[in-house]
């Protein structure tokens, strides 16, 4: 294996929304190209803040976010995002096809390429015949598929997903997890996936990053050495999976506050 620079490199990221309201204390980690990294942590610990910092949507207080060798100071061009709130992230005045196609217009693609990519990615998420529907004509699960299709059509180097399946039902959630896993394996896309569901985090990832309570620090990085091909039933009943999920659960349950993490890191 060659030692190439990581795709994403975050050093001492710190963000406070105001005096005294520190969301992220000190977060450092890196993500290699092609890796699937899950981020778990208690609610309100700063996961969304972290994602927005990476996406260039927020000017963080201090630290460094480096994507593809470039410091993130504005929105990077090789990054796409899937928000938790699909119903507010898809534009209700555009049909599904137009929603997927809109960002492509500003990537220097001609009409044919745009149409082709739109159709391809809609088919990849199983919405090949829904391009002419409005988002609000589709179920929640389908809307989130459309949001994923929009991100895929963008061909990003890094895909950020912030609790993307938190508001769909269990069966849809399992389907969408497998869809994302499939996309990751077949396209080799680097994905940063925030979730508060431990099973989901372990099931999908190459690596799980556990964050402490707010203000957050990285408690632990856990490599997930499960076989690449995963299955909702067999993977989840394997002893390796069960061990990993207990490990993560224990870390979250007994998540130390930042001082003791800091002390442990000394």
């Amino acid at each position, binding site marked *: 294996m060659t030692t190439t620079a990581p795709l994403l490199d975050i050093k001492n990221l710190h963000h406070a929304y105001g005096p005294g309201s520190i969301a992220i204390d000190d977060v450092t980690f890196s993500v290699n190209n092609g890796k699937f990294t899950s981020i778990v942590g208690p609610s309100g610990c700063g996961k969304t803040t972290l994602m927005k910092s990476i996406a260039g949507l927020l000017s963080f207080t201090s630290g460094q976010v480096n994507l593809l060798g470039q410091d993130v100071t504005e929105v990077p061009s090789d990054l*796409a995002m899937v*928000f938790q709130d699909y119903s507010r992230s898809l534009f*209700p005045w*555009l049909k599904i096809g137009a929603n997927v196609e*809109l960002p492509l217009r500003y990537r220097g693609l001609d009409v044919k390429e745009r149409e082709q990519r739109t159709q391809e990615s809609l088919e990849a998420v199983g919405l090949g015949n829904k391009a002419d529907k409005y988002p*609000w004509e589709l179920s929640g699960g389908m809307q989130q598929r459309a949001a994923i299709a*929009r991100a895929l059509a963008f061909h990003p180097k890094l895909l950020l997903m912030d609790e993307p399946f938190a508001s769909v039902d269990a069966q849809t959630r399992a389907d969408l997890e497998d869809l994302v896993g499939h996309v990751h394996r077949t396209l080799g896309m680097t994905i940063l996936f925030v979730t508060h569901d431990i099973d989901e985090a372990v099931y999908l990832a190459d690596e799980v990053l556990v964050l402490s309570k707010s203000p957050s620090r990285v408690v632990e990085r856990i490599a997930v050495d499960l076989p690449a091909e995963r299955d909702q039933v067999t993977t989840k009943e394997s002893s390796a999976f069960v061990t990993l999920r207990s490990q993560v659960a224990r870390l979250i349950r007994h998540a130390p506050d930042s001082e003791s993490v800091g002390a442990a890191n000394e």
Partner: protein
Amino acid sequence: MASILSGTASRAVRPPASGAPKLQNEFMSGAKFVIIRIAAPVILVVLWQIAAVAGDSLYFPPPSEIAVRMYELWFSGPSPWFVTPALVADIGSSLGRMFAGWGIAVVLGVALGIAIGRSRVVSQLVDPIVHFLRSTPGPALIPVFLILLGTDNLMRISLIAFGSIWPVLLNSIDGVRAIDSTQLETGRAFGLPWRARIFRIVIPAAMPKIFAGIQVSLAVALVLMVISELTVSTDGIGHQLLTAQQTFALTDMWAGIALLAILGYLLNLGFTVIERRVLRWYRGARQHD
């Protein structure tokens, strides 16, 4: 008219109708509904006719006479449109000014509304000024506009624009301020340049509110068009009205009023048709909520 001139138009922000009453409405909107809608004005006109004939007043000619006069004045032209040159002259110059003024109001109102609504600081600065200015009744400014801009079209167009910009401006500010931050962040995250974010996200997202404002401003523009023509003019419907009144041609005067009513109705109808098309997504999205 006071209620038209004050307050933001909020028609578009009613809570969504629940399923059951809507279904009932659909039953109502059958033949019964149409008959009721047509019956009321017909009865009114018939009563008016009877009263006018019975009263036999010089000031209140019966509607039949007014209708005949309208036909003679405006609708007895050559086929296929049967429009007389007088109609084209009166309505043409009036509407030309109205659309010019209203158009300026819409474009300026939306542009300023976006600029103001996007910035919290600017909107707080501008808010009191806007509310003060919009409380000034448009017609009260006619003397000022006369002195500054003279008596020609420029003065009338400016008056219409000034008077009808407020509903558009206030509703645009409101609409832009209410845009969901996730929609804006989506646009940024996917690298849309700022122009695209304005034209493809901000304006469409604020469109329901903007349209409500535009519709109110259309009514205001019509009123100001007539008022400006009643003051000083050489053509237009208002001028026709004024001349008729001054020459004691009372049937002509009533015909002018009826023509204005029809015009106002048609303008609003046309606007509603456009609005239904443009905001189809909005109606749909709310029904599916």
